[in-house]
């Protein structure tokens, strides 16, 4: 079968902007996109540039955008992708500067992974002599499955508008060490993640969970880090109060009151409160501020459910 592959070519040294180029390959049964690209490079265009190594979804070097989504080229059957989308359009990962064709600058990615201290530490930051631990794998919730391919960061919508954000891969890595009982630096690592580019930047858009080729589910690890943070006493910020006050309101009323929540979240933070007041007034005049504490049917059952889990924990 002859398959057309459209590649977004770009060499910043000579090209003004990226441009598409069509290639045609004779696709064998079960051929992956990576095999096709290697064939094109060998037979048609030696300048075609991409990273790859293991060809087995292990090394994490061949992540790219295919028909708009992040995928490992070595794991992607050409025929399936063609059947699904009716076309094969290949380009570099987003949220990272392009060096050439599908090769992107990954230095910021590595720096962010390094920034979470991805190793077992003592309280003073020295390395812990490691010992194999039984049953460790279950405790890590697959956060240790990451192959550092960058697909999640490329798909991350928070990263897209805030490039300082540590991002899903680095934070999943941070959780991997927070969850490891051999690590003795849980508190300082957690504290470092409370900053402006840390765990609270995530908008929970689920893109990282969706695109990860190794089912690491970074967003779920970020949620775990948030829970650990609140448990460890980092609970006074507006971010943490979003979770605790939301939960309290539902525990009392059975439902959320969107007009009340902002007030509870920003309580005591004059600057933030002043910012929400004008909007609150506008919302009021458009009939968007429900009257607080209207009795909700079923609230008794909800309160009982809350009490049950409070007691159990």
């Amino acid at each position, binding site marked *: 079968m002859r398959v057309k592959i459209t590649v977004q070519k770009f060499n910043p040294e000579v090209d003004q902007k990226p441009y598409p180029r069509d290639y045609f390959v004779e696709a064998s049964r079960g051929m992956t996109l990576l095999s096709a690209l290697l064939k094109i490079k060998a037979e048609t265009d030696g300048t075609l540039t991409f990273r790859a190594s293991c060809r087995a979804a292990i090394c994490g070097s061949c992540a790219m955008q295919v028909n708009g989504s992040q995928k490992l080229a070595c794991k992607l059957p050409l025929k399936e992708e063609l059947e699904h989308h009716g076309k094969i359009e290949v380009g570099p990962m987003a949220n990272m500067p392009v060096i050439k064709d599908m090769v992107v600058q990954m230095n910021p990615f590595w720096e962010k992974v390094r920034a979470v201290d991805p190793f077992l530490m003592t309280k003073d930051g020295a390395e812990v002599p490691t010992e194999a631990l039984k049953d460790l794998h279950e405790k890590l919730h697959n956060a240790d499955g990451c192959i550092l391919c960058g697909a999640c960061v490329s798909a991350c919508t928070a990263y897209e508008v805030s490039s300082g954000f540590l991002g899903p891969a680095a934070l999943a890595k941070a959780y991997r060490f927070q969850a490891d009982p051999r690590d003795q630096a849980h508190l300082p690592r957690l504290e470092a993640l409370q900053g402006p580019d840390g765990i609270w930047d995530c908008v929970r858009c689920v893109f990282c969970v969706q695109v990860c080729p190794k089912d690491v589910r970074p967003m779920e690890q970020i949620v775990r880090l948030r829970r650990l943070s609140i448990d460890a006493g980092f609970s006074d910020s507006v971010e943490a109060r979003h979770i605790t006050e939301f939960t309290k309101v539902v525990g009392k009323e059975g439902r959320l009151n969107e007009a009340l929540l902002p007030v509870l979240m920003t309580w005591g933070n004059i600057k933030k409160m002043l910012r929400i007041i004008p909007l609150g007034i506008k919302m009021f005049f458009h009939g968007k501020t429900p009257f607080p504490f209207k009795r909700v049917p079923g609230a008794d059952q909800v309160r009982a*459910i*809350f009490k049950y889990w409070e007691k159990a924990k």
Partner: protein
Amino acid sequence: MKYALFPGCAAKGATPELYASTMKVVGRLGLDIVELEAFNCCGAGVITEADPDLAYTLNARTLATAEKMGINNVMTICGTCQGILGGANKNLQEDEALRERINRALKDTTGLEYHGTVEVKHLQWILVKDFGVDELGKFITHPLHVSIAPFYGCYILRPSRATGFDDWENPTSLEKLIRAVGAYPVEYDGRTKCCGFPVLLEKDQISLSMVAQNVGEAKEKGSDAMVTPCPLCHMSLDIYQERAEDRLQQEHPDQTLGVPILHLPQLLGLAMGFSPKELGMKRHLVSPAPLIEKIQ
């Protein structure tokens, strides 16, 4: 088919126009609906952050209530509720140990028990799959002839393991509904992105950038309005649009936004001949007047 309507807190709170327009539209279409009067919040993914067991039990209560009424289809009208309640349902159905543990809590506190027989479906899916777009077409008396940008939001598409209705990479259900009302769907990248709602209060620079980017792109592509199946997306794109515009203009002083945001039932309602007033459109912060002028 009988549906138990799970309205969600937003439709009963800050976006009452969603509830009103839904009732108008499903009434006209003759969908068989019983409202879950004593529903509780789905948790929006936030209660999960505090305590996943608690969130599961709250959602199990909703599912068990419908089950006890003998109804095995729950209708949501909020993309976030769909993702959270639907996702919880999926896990409760597939993970027996989880279901047992949650049922113990549920029985102890409410006497209810969930057996896993319920399906959770957003109105958007019900119209496309159960009701049918052709059937819907018969109710369209006022074809709109305007350009509408579909905005799916996150939870109705992702994770596809739990949602699985639309193709997360290239969804089509909103486009189908836009065509069914005689309007033209706008193609733009933002349609499957995030509206920024979850961090609006704590990280407004992130949320406002998202609103500015998505609305800006829709506007650039000639949209007369945007439509969303999620009231939280609506809040962020509508209530915060003016602020997003201010932010945009710090860098691009000539750019303006001003794109009306419609709830999905409002779009359908307009094409069925309901008045903007009946559909609660005076409650929007971004004025829908230019759109209404164009369709009249």
